[in-house]
């Protein structure tokens, strides 16, 4: 499948598919404001994957909504192919929808129960390509189904006739139907059985090699993103606390939160049950976050200074950004 280059404005080579520039999202709530995403910047080049990891309330899902243009950011810009996604003209917006797709966590509510697989998979093609798609549809459909490992006969069936893993394959076939430049993967394997997860992760990786698109991979623990990601952003209470290439995150995590997350997602070993959590308590309310460093209330190494000044996200060595006063 080739990428339709005409759908995208000309950009210099090696430039990012998607760039998030100092984006914040604030929601008004009773008793104040909720800063769901707080000054996050990242960019994903073609063919690369950035993993965003964090627990509930860290803002990762809001970030995905901002990237998917489902909500405008309060501050900052989201650039797709170098253009602000909220300043696109009508035809450019079409280009955006052609170039961006998503796979969500829940394989059950992700597929319209009243549509056949063929309708589900080809909907992006029908909606965005109009008459151009016409004759190609049938061939395209079979290609897509085959590439996600489903038999052609699946086309005529309804979602309820498939298991969770197979449904996720259908959702993936739909996502790649226009060979998108960016796929947002929001916990695509979290709801699946252990024995199915690896199948789906391998599939996603293979497809990325074929399509060459960028992936934004969102997960709640470090185990799932490891295999997929080139770089990982760890988020806590709306902000990125550590950003580094995947090896650096796994081999030398610098932020105490990342270290705690990593300890929690190590492969199990019954001889060292490791029940000594390094991170205590639970995430504080994002409506009333702690002063200074947001993580200090749960941090095993916090000092007085952490409550006074918020650590900026600073580079400490080769592309390794950390927001911690105490990281060497």
């Amino acid at each position: 499948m080739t990428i339709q280059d005409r759908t995208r404005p000309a950009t210099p080579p090696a430039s990012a598919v998607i760039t998030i520039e100092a984006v914040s999202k604030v929601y008004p709530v009773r008793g104040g404001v909720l800063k769901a995403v707080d000054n996050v910047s990242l960019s994903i080049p073609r063919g690369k994957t950035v993993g965003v990891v964090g627990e509930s309330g860290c803002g990762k899902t809001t970030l995905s909504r901002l990237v998917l243009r489902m909500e405008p950011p309060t501050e900052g810009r989201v650039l797709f192919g170098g253009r602000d996604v909220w300043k696109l003209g009508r035809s450019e917006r079409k280009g955006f929808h052609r170039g961006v797709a998503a796979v969500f966590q829940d394989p059950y509510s992700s597929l319209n129960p009243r549509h056949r697989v063929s309708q589900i998979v080809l909907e992006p093609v029908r909606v965005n390509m109009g008459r151009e798609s016409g004759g190609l549809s049938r061939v395209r459909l079979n290609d897509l189904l085959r590439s996600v490992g489903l038999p052609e006969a699946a086309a005529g069936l309804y979602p309820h006739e498939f298991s969770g893993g197979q449904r996720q394959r259908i959702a993936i076939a739909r996502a790649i139907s226009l060979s998108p430049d960016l796929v947002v993967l929001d916990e695509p394997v979290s709801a699946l059985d252990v024995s199915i997860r690896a199948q789906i992760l391998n599939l996603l990786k293979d497809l990325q090699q074929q399509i060459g698109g960028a992936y934004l991979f969102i997960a709640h623990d470090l185990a799932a993103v490891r295999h997929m990601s080139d770089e990982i952003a760890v988020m806590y209470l709306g902000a990125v606390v550590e950003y580094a290439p995947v090896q650096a995150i796994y081999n030398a995590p610098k932020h105490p939160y990342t270290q705690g997350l990593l300890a929690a997602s190590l492969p199990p070993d019954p001889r060292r049950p490791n029940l000594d959590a390094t991170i205590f308590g639970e995430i504080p309310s994002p409506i009333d976050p702690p002063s200074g460093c947001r993580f200090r209330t749960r941090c095993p190494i916090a000092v007085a200074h952490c409550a006074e000044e918020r650590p900026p996200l600073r580079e400490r060595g080769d592309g390794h950004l950390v927001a911690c006063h105490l990281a060497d």
Partner: protein
Amino acid sequence: MSRAPSTQSRHLLEVKDLRTHFFTRNGVAKAVDGVSFSLDRGQTLGLVGESGSGKTVTLMSIVRLIPKPAGRIVSGEVLLEGRDLLKLSDRDMREVRGAEISVVTQDPMTSLNPLYTIGNQMEEPLRYHQHIRSHSELRSHVLDALKKVGIPVPERRMKSYPHQLSGGQRQRIVTAMAIECQPSLLIADEPTTALDVTVQIQILRLLREVQKEMNLGMIVVTHDLAVVARVCDVVAVMYAGRIVEKAPIVEMFEKPSHPYTQALMKAVEGERDATGRLYTIEGQPPDVRRLSPGCPFAPRCPKVMDICRGEYPPVASLSSQHTVSCWAAMKENGIEHIGLAPGVAS
């Protein structure tokens, strides 16, 4: 456990050849089909399996909360300290639930009633099961239980409503409710699945501590081997309604013998092949409404042999406490097929 029923001291819980089937319009689903195991006080058993493996139905059969009329316990015995729970009247069973067996479920939000304070809800089982009437006594029991599960300022928490608590706090409250009537058996169904990873460890640690301190028998049902590795003494792996392998925890991780267990271990450890692809178990879990006579794992099994497709393997002992149901594992370990009926060896 070697078989010497007459001399051996009685187990806390003994499940013998339990079969629970669901009679649906689309056929009979043999959700649990011949499960046997035993559990002693102070011991934690992990029941591991994927969705549809029958692990939760096994639990629900033990406490007799199978949705009727579709679900029915077709046969088997569930002996709690020698008494067959399946033969009790509904009324007696209600006495057993909550008093002798208590349950911690996956979602702490739905297991607490949003309309009552924590204190109110926690007093209820004490009134019902322990017949405590005095207010001060109820209060002190509840405070004790809350302290035990590490709730800070329990006096204040008693007056809180569930929605005012975080997920981890709620799971602590649910655990406190589960242990306040001094049960002998604690059943935890995916106790940490709904929680954040950093909170999961805290809850697992709590369960482990409570279980040790009160010398409870505990069954943890989960799909997550990491949970099992952290809290269990013995693991039973379920597939398509049966236990396919059972062993003490360390032995299970060091020497998994059933190909399914082996595959799960590799999957959990994120093992990759030479080309960098993750190790996978191909195919899908079977539909328990249509099982063929052979081993249900055969279509996905890398070690499948002819016999696997025709006949379900018997339970074979690899060591005193390590059993497996697999023709390939028997062959590898030099065990002859001696026609043991399934479920005979525990």
